[in-house]
């Protein structure tokens, strides 16, 4: 697919008439505008059963509307991830249990883990069998079209079907204009005016309300306990609202009126930080994170919007105000096109009365979140310039290496590799801060940029500090590109038998799920262009990872040839100097060309990042350091103690709390 379409080349272009025929609601749009913009911006695509409509991880700029026929949506990449291995055999694991009484092996809190993978359609995929069907009248790929994310899932036609593939313009016509991010603007030459949308949106909402809302609600852990009739009640009363990029959903210190559940999109939760008393702030811009700070002369306080976290599909917010009858304690704004389920105060109250457990859970979460809403100031006595420039202020848990102790024995790196199936997530190099080396390993930012654009929401943070990349990562490299510190790497590794079996299982289920005859499906599969997820035969499996790396990644590039530019960082061969994310496509395509070799089928690419070895008491790297050099610390407090040597006592107590990690 080419991403600078004067017109969409694939499929046959639609005249306005045809378009209106497929999408009647477009009649509501003034014919002039329709003529001006819609022509060529939408095409008819015909797919035979088994065809891959779009492939997960690839980049695109179009949405699809199913006119006829059915498609199945699924995640092809096997559920595979580099897991942190608990320590060795039974005896030693016992030992570990003995030694790791400090361990943070707390059970996951409810609010975090729903059993569903959010995708770019009106439904979610259940995690254990990531597979769903869509029928006529469905729209998918909306987020890709708007926010230029990679495709979040693979869509395959289960029987012959006809679709309308459309660009933003048409989407806007249908659903009303929303702010677009620059990237998308750049890629659609169409100078889009603003549209107020058509009844199509309502229709979609209705569909959603009818089919997906309940399931969606259920996918929210705190609602597990609710019973169906209440869901029905909700279905009637809940209000579906949408916001464009940067629109404010609710403002700090305003009255709380509703409880929000995120349907699509990403919500930024940020807080104002009041100045310290009698401060005459000076302006400061962090070069790395492009953040704005107001600094007091003594360098103690920082003023400005500070992002606390990002909430994504399936998460909820706004409960604190309702529970505690207080004004909003944070500002929530849409990071991109956001659809919300808004539950009014009354309904909320009613729900709480009916279901004390829900109340309890909410109170729990709310309390945790409220805890952290406090004033934050910078530690005194640090070399503030570096501290800000290197983004240490953002970090919550930093891997520091004391260069006065470190004998450069690489034990930490090896330990990390051992702990993660032989793949290190740690690079023993980086900038220095005083006599510490800030190693290149995830620092658990307060403002985890990496999480903002994951198409499948597989990189996320649960109720504890670490940032996890879930099994269903599709290796699109968005996060790696986003991380300002290069802490996320893409690694190719071979599937284990179990994973291969997993893929096969999915295959089978898909086959069952299909209405069409097996024979037909088989034929279709044979015709499928994209690599079938079948496990590879032995020889490929034997290929040793080192050797397998370059071709694999290159093929990755090719696979995502739709948008070579953003995919570029994903390709491991990108030389260090040419790190600019947005390179010209021509250049970007270059590395993709020679890589025509078939990618070994049992190799999958996954993003990896430090998970703080959560199920171990101490991170392996720190535990393995023979020289007391590697430390995993909260930088502000630690460095203030180490270097500042001033009183850092209660002013930073908030930094130690676990709650201020994911909260608003």
């Amino acid at each position, binding site marked *: 697919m080419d991403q600078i379409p004067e017109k969409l080349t694939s499929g046959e272009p639609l005249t306005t008439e045809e378009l209106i025929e497929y999408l009647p609601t477009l009649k509501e749009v003034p014919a002039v505008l329709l003529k001006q913009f819609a022509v060529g911006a939408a095409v008819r695509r015909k797919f035979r059963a088994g065809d891959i409509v779009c492939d997960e991880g690839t980049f695109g700029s179009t949405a699809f509307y199913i006119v006829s026929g059915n498609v199945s949506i699924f995640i092809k990449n096997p559920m595979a991830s580099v897991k942190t291995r608990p320590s060795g055999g039974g005896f030693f694991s016992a030992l570990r249990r003995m030694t790791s009484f400090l361990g943070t092996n707390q059970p996951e809190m409810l609010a975090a883990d729903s059993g569903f993978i959010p995708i770019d359609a009106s439904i979610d995929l259940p995690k254990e069998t990531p597979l769903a069907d869509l029928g006529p009248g469905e729209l998918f790929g909306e987020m890709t079209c708007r926010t230029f994310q990679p495709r979040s899932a693979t869509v395959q036609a289960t029987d012959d079907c006809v679709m309308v593939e459309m660009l933003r313009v048409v989407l806007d016509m249908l659903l009303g204009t929303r702010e677009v991010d620059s990237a998308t603007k750049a890629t659609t030459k169409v100078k889009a005016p603003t549209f107020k949308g058509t009844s199509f949106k309502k229709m979609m909402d209705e569909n959603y309300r009818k089919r997906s809302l309940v399931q969606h609600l259920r996918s929210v852990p705190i609602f597990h306990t609710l019973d169906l009739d209440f869901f029905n009640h909700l279905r009637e009363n809940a209000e579906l609202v949408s916001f464009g990029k940067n629109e404010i959903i609710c403002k700090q210190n305003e009255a709380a009126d509703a409880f929000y559940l995120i349907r699509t999109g990403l919500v930024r939760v940020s807080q104002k930080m009041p100045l310290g008393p009698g401060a005459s702030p000076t302006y400061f811009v962090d070069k790395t994170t492009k953040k704005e700070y107001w600094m007091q002369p003594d360098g103690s306080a920082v003023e400005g919007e500070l992002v606390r976290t990002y909430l994504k599909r399936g998460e909820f917010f706004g409960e604190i105000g309702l529970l505690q009858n207080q004004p909003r304690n944070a500002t929530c704004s849409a990071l991109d096109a956001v659809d919300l389920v808004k539950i009014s105060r009354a309904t909320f109250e009613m729900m709480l009365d009916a279901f004390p457990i829900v109340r309890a859970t909410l109170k729990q979460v709310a309390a945790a979140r409220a805890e952290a809403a406090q004033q934050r100031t910078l530690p005194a006595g640090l070399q503030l310039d570096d501290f800000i420039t290197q983004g240490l202020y953002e970090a919550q848990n930093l891997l520091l290496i004391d260069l006065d102790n470190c004998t450069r024995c690489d034990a930490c790196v090896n330990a990390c*590799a051992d702990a993660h199936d032989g793949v290190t997530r740690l690079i023993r190099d980086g900038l220095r801060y005083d006599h510490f080396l800030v190693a290149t390993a995830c620092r658990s930012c307060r403002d985890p940029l990496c999480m903002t654009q994951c198409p499948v929401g597989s990189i996320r943070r649960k109720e504890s500090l670490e940032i996890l990349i879930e099994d269903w990562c599709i290796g699109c490299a968005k996060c790696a590109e986003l991380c300002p510190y290069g802490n996320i790497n893409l690694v190719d590794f071979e599937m284990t038998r179990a994973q291969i079996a997993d893929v096969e299982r999915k295959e089978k289920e898909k086959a069952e799920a299909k209405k069409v005859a097996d024979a037909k499906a088989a034929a279709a599969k044979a015709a499928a262009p994209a690599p079938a997820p079948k496990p590879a035969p032995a020889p490929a499996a034997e290929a040793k990872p080192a050797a397998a790396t370059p071709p694999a990644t290159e093929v990755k590039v090719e696979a995502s040839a739709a948008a070579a530019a953003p995919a570029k960082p994903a390709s491991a061969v990108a030389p260090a100097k040419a790190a600019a994310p947005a390179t010209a496509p021509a250049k970007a395509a270059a590395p993709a060309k020679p890589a025509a070799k078939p990618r070994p089928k049992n190799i999958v690419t996954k993003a990896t990042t430090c998970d703080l070895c959560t199920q171990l008491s101490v991170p392996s790297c720190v535990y393995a350091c023979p020289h007391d050099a590697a430390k995993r610390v909260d930088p502000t407090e630690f460095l203030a103690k180490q270097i500042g040597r001033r009183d850092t006592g209660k002013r930073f107590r908030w930094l130690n709390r676990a709650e201020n990690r994911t909260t608003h």
Partner: protein
Amino acid sequence: MADQPRTQKQIAQKYKDNLDYYRRGHFLRRLKLALFLLAVIGSLSAVFGFRFWGNKQYFNTGPISQNHARFANDCAQCHDGAEADLSRALKLDQAVTDLKEGHLPSLDFEKLKAAGKNFSAAEMAAAAQRNFSPEQLSALQQVVIKKSSLAGMDRACLKCHEPFQLHQPQIEALKLRGVHPEMPLVHSDRCSTCHREHVGTGLMKVPGSESCATCHADLKELARTRNVIKVNSPSPPTRPENRDLGDKLIRFLMPQEANAQPAVIKNYADGHPPFRYEAAGARDPAVIKYNHQRHEQADIPKLNGHALQCADCHQVKNGGAFYERVKYQQHCAQCHSLNVVPELPGFTIPHGDPAVVRVFAESMNRQMFTYLLNQQPGAAEADLAARVVDIVGKIRGRGNSTLEEFERRIYEAGDPPRDERISSKSNTGQIFPPCAKCHEVTPSSGAALRKVTKTNIADRWIHHGPFTHLPHTHMMCIDCHSKEVGSRNTADILLPSQALCAQCHSPLRKDKVLEVIDGGVAPRPGTPEMVEKQKREGGVKWECQNCHQFQAPPEAIRLLQSASAK
């Protein structure tokens, strides 16, 4: 200029396509591995290669004494190993030979029975028929079994050296077995405890007192190693007693206190127990009336022109290790003659058997006639006879007309009897003294013979140490036997105390050493000054081994058997 600003990400980017470097080999790691393997292979091959090409000297911990020089390259001669011990622990072959030679089998009967098939019925019987009292048996077996627990190295000594199994009993203890109901048994199965090898060429050093002290200075250790067996001794002394144990030597014996714990001894001067005769209530049981003090007095008539001396009666015997018994004929008779009449010197009453005395008394005339005949060979018999009659008449005239009277005078009264003498103090005027003067005479009624008790003067006072006077010839008698002076009673024991001996026989008292003796002349050996010096400084033979020997003689066991067989 060299430092362009870099971001963390740029740094990280450098490594992006080489993330698995630690999987690939690297110079330093390879080198480390290579050297390690080298060490592994090297050391292991060194160890195993030694079996074939190694030189035993490699394990030699020190130069070997000339006694064992010829084994220098054959470790196995002595170090024949723990497994050799185990193989030897059950010494059936040894047991068979022992049985055949009529020794005590060097293993207990359980093992013997277990190995029954190796023995003929006769042998089994012989083994079973050892008529020991059970405790002796067990004790002896202990000894022998202990021997079989010799460490390999110590057993190796027995290949050439006589198997000394016992430290006790020593030969003297065995001699005294008749009078001591208890006999200590101490096994000595550890040659290497005292004998050091690999400490230098030349002769092996004789173990010093400190070796003995390792046991004898440690009561716990003594209690552990020492065990006592009961010997059925016919007549143990109940009081001090001089007895001949059948070797023509009269020994001074004290009753043995039962199961006495040995003292803690470091060396002769430190902890050595006093001699038996020093014990309270020890007295000389000899039956003779002798007063040393009297004989030292001034009015004692000169003998051969000089005043009486110790040497006049105490004379050295065969080289001077010990002294002659004091005999009447040689010593006493010089002063105390038994002449019947002054006219006939040498015509004396026989000293000894009362029967002989009686015969003499009855046939005095004929005795005298033959005596005179011997005196004057040519004289006419008639004159001689006349002379005999004359003399006998005189004797009779002295009042011993009858035989009874005569014997009374010989035994009890003396002639002339005390009341007829001028002074009872001296013997002046007495022709011959009565036996009872010195001896114990039991009177008899009528014609029966009197009895004179044997004197029974002890020849040996100490039995364990081989004491000899020879090295002491440079000393005066009274240096040691000082108690003699003023001793009136026979019962006094006139021997030096152990403490007295220890004055000289002690480790050198360095603080007492004087560099220059007054006058600047170092005392020559054998001079009184030397004695003074030695008394002051000590340093004269004080090691245990100077008097005692460690190993019991090989025949100890055999003697033990014969002793208990009686």
